[in-house]
């Protein structure tokens, strides 16, 4: 077998590397389980996710060969992670902050925004125009 034959021959990683990464993953599992018995308050989640992200990186880089392969695969994988992050973060902006727009807290916004006044006190007193944006043409 011609091992020099450029990129047509796949990169064969040594056995030691696979076993080493596997051992590292098990050690990290032991760490995250041990840490979970102590309470760091809000940092519990942060610590657990940091360890999980480290483990995931090891799996992706070595077992899935992303470290050695054409970088296009790494880009594809990271794209999915980035879009997932955008998805979750934007959803959290909404679901965590929904209550802030209740009557009281919306008050200053309402005062600044002319549209609320015109909606609440429509100039043309038709019965069904209450919740419509009034016509701008006088």
């Amino acid at each position, binding site marked *: *077998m*011609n091992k020099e*034959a*450029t*990129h*047509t021959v*796949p990169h*064969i*990683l040594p*056995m030691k590397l*696979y*076993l080493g*990464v*596997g051992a590292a*993953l*098990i050690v990290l*599992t032991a760490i*995250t*389980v041990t840490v*979970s018995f102590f309470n760091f308050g809000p940092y*519990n*989640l942060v610590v*657990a*996710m940091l*360890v*999980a992200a480290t*483990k*995931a990186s090891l*799996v*992706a880089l*070595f*077992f*899935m060969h992303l470290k050695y*392969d*054409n970088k*296009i*695969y790494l880009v*594809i*994988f990271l*794209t*999915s*992670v980035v*879009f*997932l992050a955008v*998805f*979750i973060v934007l*959803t*959290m902006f909404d*679901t*965590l902050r929904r209550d802030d727009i209740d009557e009281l807290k919306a008050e200053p916004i309402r005062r600044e925004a002319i549209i609320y006044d015109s909606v609440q006190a429509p100039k043309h007193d038709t019965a069904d125009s209450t919740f419509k944006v009034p016509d701008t043409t006088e």
Partner: protein
Amino acid sequence: MDQTVGHPEFLQHHFSDVEQQRESAKLGMWIFLLTEVLLFGGLFCAYSIYRSWNPEIFHNAHRFLDVYLGTLNTVVLIVSSVTMALAIRSMQLDRKKQTLIFLIVTLALAAAFLVVKYFEYSHKFHLGQLPGKFYTFTGIEGTNPHIFFSVYFLMTGLHGIHVIGGMAVITWLIFKTRGRTFSSQYYTPIEMTGLYWHLVDLIWIFLFPLFYLVG
């Protein structure tokens, strides 16, 4: 570069060479894995919403998951990932018998994962810690503790289905390896199954702490 030996049996006609065929398969597989990340991503998003709305319930309910069984399953999946990677390596070195052994061990570990999951699930079924209207357990404080179990069963269930799917493909690989389909020149199906299997492991790496540890 050009080391084509006539026309290998495994080379499809619409590819110009083995390398192109391999790279195309890999590109397709990674795009599939991207959709898998987004599929589970929807559920991870649901988890985030429900957890942020019901922090006490998630905290109280997660104590009813067995950390030791969860840890055991994590280790089982990690070892199965190692054996899967080693199966590919053995085939790259043309050690077919070794590949076969590693594939069988991977399959056995996947089955072990499901057996542990079976015991966990049946215990919860027995206690009535079930999703939605099927929830009958009374030992958890807080309103609507069934929400935790809805998310738990959805996410671990979908993951379990992926494990079963992986097992089916690995079984197929075992027969193909025995039938001498693969060689160091052509082992793309084993490599692609490996990628899938590592992703299943990767998703469990996040499910485990989110449910069993920090709940």
